[in-house]
């Protein structure tokens, strides 16, 4: 089965910023692929290239076997794009918005209406379908935007940071919708800064930074590769943190991390369960009372740190992503 996306050696420069620096990526059909990376990693540039909005300076790019540079119009027939901002028209109803896009895909009036109804149903927007979008909540707008990228029955859905700025509940609703799509046979490429999102949705995660792929695999594979088990301790009293750190340092050759805000200390170890017993014994000996203690697999945050040496943005925060649409051409200085 042809991979849905094949990218080889993609490079792209905007002014003196190298947005893509030799990117290689293969996304297989039948699963969600997540592109994970910090601001400026080049995720949006890559999605734009797949969506035929940006032409790479060099390299090969194919969507469903179609050469993007050679036949962009055919590529546009099989993709659906939902960019970073919900680009639906507030002065039109949900249904009208979907019908508009369906008509642009070449469906006649009746087929467009049917497609719009179908998508509204699938995304739980049927009741709100005849209301103006300006009355929708943020989460509903995003879902409608997702719907707009679906009406043309694309083979590949491109979602650029789909849940940025959404509250946790809307985020989960959108995740459910996205998962439902894959079950229906649509391939999905999504970009995200939210580790939770990549972890939750994708079977294939590609970690990207500075315009190239750092590592790729399933979330579990990546965690295996980049990390060891981690022992996590939360003492009841914040004042005990230093003592906890010392204990943790004694069972590992790694430096313990501690966070005063969450009142947790952790350290990576080689034999998780055994070291845990040791740690618990020592904590008991020193009469430190605990709120929580346990051993866990590394988070993608730790994977990223291990692979790239820098931390990713904290996951799930109200992250102001307005500086993220940096690849758009507002003048010629684009910091990708």
């Amino acid at each position, binding site marked *: 089965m042809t991979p849905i996306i094949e990218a080889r050696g993609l490079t792209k420069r905007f002014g003196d910023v190298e947005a893509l620096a030799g990117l290689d990526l293969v996304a297989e059909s039948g699963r969600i692929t997540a592109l994970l990376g910090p601001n400026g990693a080049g995720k949006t540039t890559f999605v734009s290239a797949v969506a035929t909005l940006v*032409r790479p300076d060099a390299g090969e790019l194919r969507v469903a076997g179609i050469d993007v540079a050679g036949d*962009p119009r055919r590529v546009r*027939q099989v993709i659906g794009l939902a960019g*970073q901002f919900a680009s639906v028209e507030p002065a*039109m109803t949900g249904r009208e918005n979907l019908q508009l896009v369906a008509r*642009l*895909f070449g469906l006649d009036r009746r*087929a467009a209406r049917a497609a719009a109804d179908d998508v509204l149903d699938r995304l739980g927007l049927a009741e709100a379908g005849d209301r103006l979008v300006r009355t929708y909540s943020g989460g509903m707008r995003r879902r409608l935007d997702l719907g707009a990228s679906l009406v043309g029955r694309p083979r590949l859905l491109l979602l650029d940071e789909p849940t940025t700025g959404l509250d946790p509940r809307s985020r989960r609703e959108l995740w459910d919708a996205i998962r439902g799509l894959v079950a229906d046979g649509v391939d999905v490429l999504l970009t995200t800064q939210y580790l939770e999102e990549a972890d939750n949705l994708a079977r294939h995660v590609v970690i990207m930074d500075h315009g190239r792929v750092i590592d790729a695999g399933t979330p579990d594979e990546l965690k295996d590769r980049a990390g060891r088990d981690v022992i996590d301790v939360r003492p009841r009293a914040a004042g005990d943190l230093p003592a906890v750190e010392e204990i943790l340092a004694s069972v590992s050759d790694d430096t313990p991390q501690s966070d005063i805000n969450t009142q947790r200390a952790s350290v990576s170890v080689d034999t998780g369960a055994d070291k845990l017993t040791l740690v618990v014994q020592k904590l008991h000996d020193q009469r430190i009372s605990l709120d929580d203690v346990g051993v866990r697999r590394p988070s993608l945050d730790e994977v990223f740190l291990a692979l790239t040496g820098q931390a990713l943005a904290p996951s799930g925060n109200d992250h102001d992503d307005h500086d993220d649409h940096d690849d758009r051409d507002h003048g010629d200085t684009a910091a990708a």
Partner: protein
Amino acid sequence: MSTTTTTIGPTTDTQPAALVSATGAGFATATVQSARRTFLQYLRTPQLLVLPTITGAMFLFIFRYVFGGAIDTGHGVDYVDFLVPGFLLTTILWTGMNAPAGVAEDAASGVHDRFRSLPIPRAAVVAGRSLADGALTSWTLFVNALLGFAVGFRTHGDVAAVVAAFGLMLVATYVFSWVFLTLGLVGGNAQAAQGISTLIVVPFTFLSSAYVPVGSMPGWLQPFAEHQPITVMVNAVRSLMLGGTQAAGVGHTTGYWVVLSFVWCAGILAVFSGLAVARFARTR
């Protein structure tokens, strides 16, 4: 792997891999859909239409009643008759000036990106927008014409000439919609687009024969004021509506000004439609 085109049905299709390859709309459909979107935007956001009309009325009022008494048209024509043709022609610019902000917003917010990722001719998106903008400005032109008559304007040309004057203004409306579209596309964001538009519209409307005779301006302003396209078009409209170039206070013949106006329109249209399409359709 073959792709089949099926009619869209519910997801309980027996062919779950209904991976339809949609062919995409043609130029006409895409243009209409694009125009429709802009139309609905304006019709359902009343302030977008109402505010320019009100400010236009205020403008007319100020010039007709406040300044009018002090302005000497130089050849015995009532100021109201002198003013209104100029006022109407420049309405095209003052109203058209509202479009760039919306266009810039669309560009910045991903609407244009979505359109560009669709299997449609990219030029159709801007063609549709200019049609809608042109139509909406024409509506304001019509309302302002009524206002002009309400404050005392009377035509002195024959009916055919007056109709021709409106015809010329409608053509100019369409032509200038492309200019504002282009400004919106290169503006980058709504404020910048608005700012650039103002910087352009103000000199072209005021340093023209629209509100005062060019002859009344200082000598160093006259070369620009005399030859710029707005003056040419105002002269044409005024001559047509007032029954001749003498009534309009200019030389040459009515035909001269009309032909020159169309030449300017053709040139402006060619340049700006080309720029707009190139800018919108480009793949970076």
